[in-house]
């Protein structure tokens, strides 16, 4: 019976609406933080409050916030947390290759332009 229920839900137990709402609130908060970070560092709030302290870490903070959003969507909305592990491995393996492709392209372009290391485009 339990396995039939799991079959109907694509191999994992159904998630409650409340959990989905919690994740939505987290995702919107993280997006608001991204925009606030931009506004503080380079936008209309430039120079206000913690802007000077945050500016040197703008790229790292932004990438961290989007990685967190990515993780929440993949784990809870795409159900990787509940699904069988092989799906997580398929996705993780692709992400590792994707990162290798990005790094390889940066190095290749920087090298062919004679800008090795100094030309990494951040």
């Amino acid at each position, binding site marked *: 019976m339990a396995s039939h229920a799991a*079959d*109907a*839900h*694509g*191999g994992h137990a*159904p*998630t*409650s*609406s409340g959990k*989905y*709402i919690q*994740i*939505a609130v987290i*995702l*919107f908060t993280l*997006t608001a933080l*991204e*925009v606030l*970070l*931009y*506004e503080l*560092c*380079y*936008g209309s709030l430039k120079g206000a409050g913690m802007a000077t302290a945050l500016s040197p870490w*703008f*790229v790292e903070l*932004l*990438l961290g*916030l*989007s990685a967190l*959003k*990515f993780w929440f*969507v*993949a784990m809870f*909305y*795409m159900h990787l947390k509940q*699904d*069988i592990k*092989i*799906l997580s491995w*398929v*996705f993780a*393996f*692709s*992400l590792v*290759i*994707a*990162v290798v*492709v*990005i790094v390889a*392209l*940066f190095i290749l*372009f920087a090298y062919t332009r004679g800008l090795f290391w100094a030309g990494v*485009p*951040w």
Partner: protein
Amino acid sequence: MSSATLAHDEAHEGHHTSLPIDNRKLAIWTFIGSECLFFATLISTFLIYKDNHPKGPGPKEIFEVGLVTAGTAVLLFSSFFVVMALNGAQEGNRKKMLGWLAATIFCGLFFLGMQVYEFNHFYHEGLGYTTNLFGTSFYTLTGFHGTHVAIGTLWLITVFKDAVKGNLPPAKALNLELAALYWHFVDVVWIIIFPVVYLMSLRS
């Protein structure tokens, strides 16, 4: 074993592998994996060429944070809506499923409308596809993402049509889950594009 029993067993196991999941689900995840590589090359190409605009406008002259933030919020809303629709499908609550699914489709259409407006606005500001390398890599990346949104919206419309006809009982909720997985992937790509392409390009 009678031939009727065999036929029934074959039909029942038609979508199953030796793994305890439907093979269509494994297929969509493998496809999503290949799409990660596709978007990785487009995003890195944009990052390499984003400062290459000797003629025509660059990111700081044309990007509008407000409009893109609205588009991002709409895509995030749509991801939430589609899991609520899936929840309805799994519970056998047809009304809930149809309502949330319609809202998701509306969000997809809204996002596409926003992108058409944005492209049109940029074009009139002087940024054509071949104006500079920034424009080429920007339109290629966001254009391909928009195409994925359009395909996802069409897929959701077909699922919606099925649900209206009553062909999506809880036992077939996986049909909606597959479309939802693709839709979430499209959202996840935008989660990367929004800060990397828009916010980072706007900094001085």
